[in-house]
């Protein structure tokens, strides 16, 4: 997404304003955001805080992500509470820590931009726990086998491809 103002740089500041039930969204690059006075960075202020910590930084990143106005958005206050542990997204923004595993699902929409900002990715590609991850692991193995299958077909190694196809079928059976 490109900055709406200069149309030259990627938009990194997203501001949602809700005034009289009318919602407007603005997407700007950091430079234009600063020039047009919506610099969310001003809200950071963390550099001067004596008790600077990683959680403060994270909370500030969130502030930056949603802009100070987003606090009044009905979307934020009404829906965003974890039913399991009771933590609200506002709590999370203050402390930078989630309350339980279900928070990830409860705040899925709002966490996405943060995860992308911190990690540059949204999906796990690493280790899958053997037991807890059961089906997930099998799905991953199938995906790997499919890649191998394509590659085998590419090299015209049809015997090998047939073998891989059988393996995939066997794994798909396991999933049922």
């Amino acid at each position, binding site marked *: 997404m490109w900055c709406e103002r200069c149309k030259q740089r990627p938009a990194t500041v997203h501001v949602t304003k809700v005034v009289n039930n009318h919602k407007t969204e603005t997407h700007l690059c950091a430079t234009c955001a600063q020039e047009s006075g919506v610099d969310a960075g001003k809200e950071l202020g963390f550099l001067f805080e004596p008790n600077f910590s990683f959680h403060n930084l994270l909370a500030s990143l969130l502030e930056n992500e949603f802009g100070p106005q987003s606090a009044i958005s009905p979307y934020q206050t009404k829906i965003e509470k974890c039913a399991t542990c009771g933590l609200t997204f506002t709590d999370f923004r203050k402390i930078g820590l*989630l309350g339980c*595993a279900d928070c990830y699902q409860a705040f899925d929409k709002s966490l996405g931009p943060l995860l992308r900002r*911190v990690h540059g990715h949204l999906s*796990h590609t690493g280790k899958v*726990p053997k037991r807890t*991850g059961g089906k997930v692991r099998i799905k991953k193995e199938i995906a790997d086998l499919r890649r191998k299958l394509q590659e085998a077909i590419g090299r015209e190694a049809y015997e090998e491809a047939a073998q891989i196809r059988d393996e995939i079928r066997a794994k798909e059976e396991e999933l049922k």
Partner: protein
Amino acid sequence: MDHKKKMKELLPGWLHRPAPEGDVVVSSRIRLARNLQGYSFPHQADEQALESVIAKVERALKKSAFTLKRLDGIGQSDRLLLVEQYLISPDLLKNPAHRGVMVNSDQTVAIMLNEEDHIRIQSIHPGLALQEAWDEANRFDDVLEAELDYAYAEKAGYLTTCPTNVGTGLRASVMLHLPALQMVDQVKKVLSVLPHVGLSVRGIYGEGTESTGNLYQISNQVTLGLTEDEIIGKIISVTKQVMDQERSAREALLAKESRLQLEDRVRRAYGLLSEARLISSEEAFKLWNNVLLGVKLGLIPEVSVEQVNELFFLIRPAILQHIVGKDLTPHERDYYRAEVIRKHLQTKRG
């Protein structure tokens, strides 16, 4: 006191394993963050839940020869000892009730309970041995997972209290000793590229100021969207490059007319360290840095690298108090510190 025996007990067990590339890389560390399904994360959990976590982990490790040390069952000086031995983080001390650590018999693996996450598995190896540390941590992760239901989601991976750890839950780090790069004023330049490849760097200052810090820690920033092997591979390859730079800087320093100055500097540090009668931990750490460089460059042949590495721990307040066997005032500490250093440098000499 039986100096040698007592010391051996107090030094972390991993210190005595082989240290590949030990001339530059001090240690390699893997930390895995895990949580149990069905319990709130520690900062939100009630006492009962925290106790269940401890009991469940203890049961899962029953066959693996781990010992549980509960923080609420020991005094403050024993807690600080665990911090100085790198078995727990200082954060675990903030709220010692219902917190603990499980340590294996040779003290190479420590599993912190109810810190930021329910479970934090740590493996430390000396030198550049990230792969070995990962293999070890991964093995015990499997042991735990065979019994416990981890909080895990297909998309986000291992679910952690702080979203900055989500995915692999892996923090891999190496500690580097870069005195020569620091001397030729190249540290910042060499390390400044690391953030661009998703790695973070921080200086370890001990208790002193910037001038004492020749130790730097490199670790991964990203935990989501990369595999464990990718994360570890990246740190290893970057570490090797930094290592080459440090080695060339050392050679350059030895080749030039600066050699005499360097030799003077490290031998003076050695002289002070081995002859002082009162020494603060700050001064000891500063001198230690120079002595370590001297030993590595072969300018202090009478001391081994292992000996100096051990000193790094012996000068710390809680370990020192345990060697002496009683609580010490700061002044007493300075006296005993000097004595312990002197004895330690003498014992193995010759």
